[in-house]
């Protein structure tokens, strides 16, 4: 199939639109001038300033902690929820349960944040890292559950039944048969939860207290006043990390795919 001129134009313009803003951001993070939009010369000094800025480093550490804890917890809870929904058959309150899994996906963040904050105040929980972790776990477990259930729906249930017939306990069958098969979905669920947590501004702003500031909160309060060179440097670092992560992940999955293909042809 050959691409027509129209299609080439829309692809070029489309991807330019998607990537140009970020390319500009990256390029200008190496600008020497404090006036961000005026190029005066190449310099890495904003990266130096960033690394000397204790407030940013602290916020990055808080964000990282929150993301690790909440995504791990969300993966466990989300996988359990998916298993219950797909394999649990009919149980009392199943409709409510699946409703509660899907609702947070479409609920505006301002509402999720507000409602959780009101809960934490109501039960007198002091706000800080713990409350952000609880909040992030709640909405990202729903994403994990959706990703994992799509994998659970697709796989052959007789494999589990065979394991049970051959004397496995239900937990053994889950650990030895189900988990290895759904592992890719569980891993991508964890990655998704991790990114969502790293990224979240609104829910964290509502549920945090004075003791914990995350990176998005810090960035937001800095950029409200306008464009700043330190934030450009920080953004570049974050874009670099994500790009690297995605490339590594896609290479790994490609290698797995090739392995599988080879195994299939050998069989």
């Amino acid at each position: 199939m050959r691409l027509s001129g129209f299609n080439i134009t829309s692809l070029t313009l489309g991807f330019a639109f998607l990537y140009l803003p970020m390319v500009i951001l990256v390029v200008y993070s190496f600008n020497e001038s404090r006036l961000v939009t005026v190029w005066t010369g190449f310099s890495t000094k904003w990266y130096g300033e960033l690394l000397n800025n204790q407030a940013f480093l602290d916020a990055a550490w808080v964000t990282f902690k929150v993301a690790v804890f909440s995504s791990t917890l969300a993966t466990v809870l989300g996988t359990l929820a998916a298993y219950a929904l797909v394999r649990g058959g009919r149980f009392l309150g199943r409709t409510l349960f699946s409703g509660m899994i899907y609702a947070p996906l479409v609920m505006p963040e301002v509402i999720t944040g507000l409602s959780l904050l009101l809960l934490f105040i109501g039960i007198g929980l002091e706000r800080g890292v713990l409350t952000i972790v609880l909040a992030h776990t709640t909405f990202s477990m729903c994403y994990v559950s959706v990703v994992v259930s799509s994998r659970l729906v697709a796989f052959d249930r007789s494999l589990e039944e065979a394991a049970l017939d051959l004397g496995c306990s239900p937990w053994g069958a889950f650990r030895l048969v189900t988990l290895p098969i759904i592992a890719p979905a569980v891993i991508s669920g964890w990655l998704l939860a991790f990114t969502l947590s790293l990224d979240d501004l609104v829910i964290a702003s509502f549920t945090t207290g004075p003791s914990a500031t995350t990176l998005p909160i810090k960035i937001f309060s800095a950029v409200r006043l306008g464009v700043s060179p330190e934030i450009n440097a920080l953004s570049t670092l974050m874009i670099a990390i994500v790009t690297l992560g995605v490339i590594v992940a896609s290479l790994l999955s490609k290698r797995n795919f090739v392995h599988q293909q080879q195994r299939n042809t050998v069989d």
Partner: protein
Amino acid sequence: MKRVVVALIPYLWLLGLFLVPFAIVLKISLSDVAMARPPYLPQFSWNEGIGAFLSQLDFENFTFLTTDDLYWKAYLSSLKIAATSTLLTLLIGYPIAYAMARTPEQWRATLMMLVILPFWTSFLIRVYSWMGILSQEGYLNQLLLGLGVISEPLILLNTKIAVYIGIVYTYIPFMILPIYAALHRLDNSLIEAAEDLGCSRAKAFWLVTVPLSRNGIVAGCFLVFIPTLGEFVIPSLLGGSGTLMIGKVLWEEFFNNRDWPVASAVAVVLVLILIIPIVLFQQNQQKQQEAES
């Protein structure tokens, strides 16, 4: 027995951290603002009993929402902004999805990854990247002034135009992916048949391609419309004080005015408005699944 435990943990978690909090919002939306800590009355107490508590509830906050211009204007303006930007995203996203579905097979995986990649990058940073482009001394104005297209810098940042650009930019992957999914399944011989039977290219596109990608279009539109309606980050970074959106109003009501009952009432009404598109979206997805199986 163990199965019950498996379902129970996430179930209880969501009850406690999703449903109960929402019930609290509902309750506070029916309370009065008060100079207290927390700043609303009545506070629920089991000693007085539910009857006494219920008798103190009122719909004052909801009537307040209808009397003060700010709120209904913000709801209307959010609906308008969400609808307009959904349409814009469709108009820009469709040709991209279409072209992706027409590229040779070996390119498609890479193009898909390129569409998804921005989604993994911070939303906040993607919105922020437009501040430098659109500001008065920004890159776009520099470029246009340099080319001599304009003689005065355009005012783009802190206008609705900037909000539209921000929404289209951040949500376009949600439009491209479902449309691409519908288009790449499309059987090319159908279009050839239409052309053989005397359709012009444009007519074949309009009569065959568009209807067959309808599900993708509908799904994409809802995926953009629903989250934009309650958007906060984009209007507050790009929209300036002139852009009214309900997510921003809720935030300001809560953090700046500290009026919790009104903020809660705003939230309840927003959920009620959202239920309609969400139910429609669900129905569309179900129909699609039934059609596929």
